[in-house]
């Protein structure tokens, strides 16, 4: 019965979506704002990656909101799962030698790769969120490969707080210098070089560290949570 109701609801949603989308021609831009962004973005922001220009320059306030949402999600997981030894005291069977050595060997390279992604966020695809997820995956690899591994909680919380403060501080400096919050007050530099695009690389490094610390905290809380 429940499955039947779910099926009916799903087909109603599908019909509604089909009716709504039927009149929109596929593959044409319907909005002037996209064309405007494409034409102006590189000149305004100095970042050749237009997506980065929009996410960290035009819509940087929304990005601050996103980071805050992620922070509250991490906080929620931390409140639900208490911080205790993995498996709730149950002894975990160890991983084999290959997995242990492989995890230990690959961990620094994955960290380095995550750093590469968010430092080069304004030149190549990717950015703070992707790099943060890669860094959190590196810590997840340590948890999977080495049973009983515990992430130090205090530096994690310190990184989260400091990066959050830095983000807001950059915004306020922009407000003081240029007249609006998160103004791009640094010189733009030459396009396609690493040190260019003003505050965008700094903001993306801040976002990457913050997202990485938050997601690693989620994983640590999930694994280390009690079993009651």
């Amino acid at each position: 019965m429940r499955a039947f109701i779910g099926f009916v609801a799903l087909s109603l949603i599908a019909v509604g979506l089909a009716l709504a989308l039927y009149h929109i021609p596929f593959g044409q831009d319907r909005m002037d704002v996209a064309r405007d962004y494409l034409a102006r973005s590189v000149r305004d922001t100095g970042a050749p990656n237009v997506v980065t220009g929009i996410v960290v320059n035009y819509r940087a306030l929304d990005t601050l909101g996103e980071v805050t949402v992620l922070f509250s999600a991490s906080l929620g997981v931390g409140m639900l799962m208490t911080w205790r030894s993995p498996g709730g005291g149950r002894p975990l069977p160890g991983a084999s030698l290959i997995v242990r050595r492989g995890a230990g060997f690959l961990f620094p390279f994955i960290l380095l790769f995550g750093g590469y992604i968010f430092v080069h966020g304004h030149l190549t695809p990717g950015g703070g969120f992707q790099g943060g997820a890669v860094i959190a995956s590196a810590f997840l690899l340590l948890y999977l490969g080495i049973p009983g591994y515990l992430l130090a909680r205090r530096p994690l919380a310190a990184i989260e707080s400091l990066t959050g403060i830095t983000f807001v501080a950059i915004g306020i400096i922009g407000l003081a210098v240029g007249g609006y919050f998160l103004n791009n007050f640094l010189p733009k530099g030459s396009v396609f070089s690493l040190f260019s695009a003003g505050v965008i690389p700094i903001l993306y490094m801040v976002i990457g560290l913050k997202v990485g610390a938050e997601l690693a905290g989620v994983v640590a809380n999930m694994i280390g949570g009690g079993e009651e």
Partner: protein
Amino acid sequence: MIYIALLVVGMLGAGIAACLLRDLLAAVVAAAAVSLILSGFFYLLQAPDVAMAEAAIGAGLTTAIFVIAIRKTGRHEE
């Protein structure tokens, strides 16, 4: 064109399997397959930023978090 049809069929099948499977571990694997094909789709549509986000989140983190959640609750759905 035929390749895109193949991808759509694969993604739909994997998504329906993720909903219907009673063994939750198999459902997690099906969800990982959905994420993989979706990332390939974003790549085909030339949106590498979104494809990279989907890859970074879907490849390791969501699978592992689902698996840990299954370990904490139970593997089979009643």
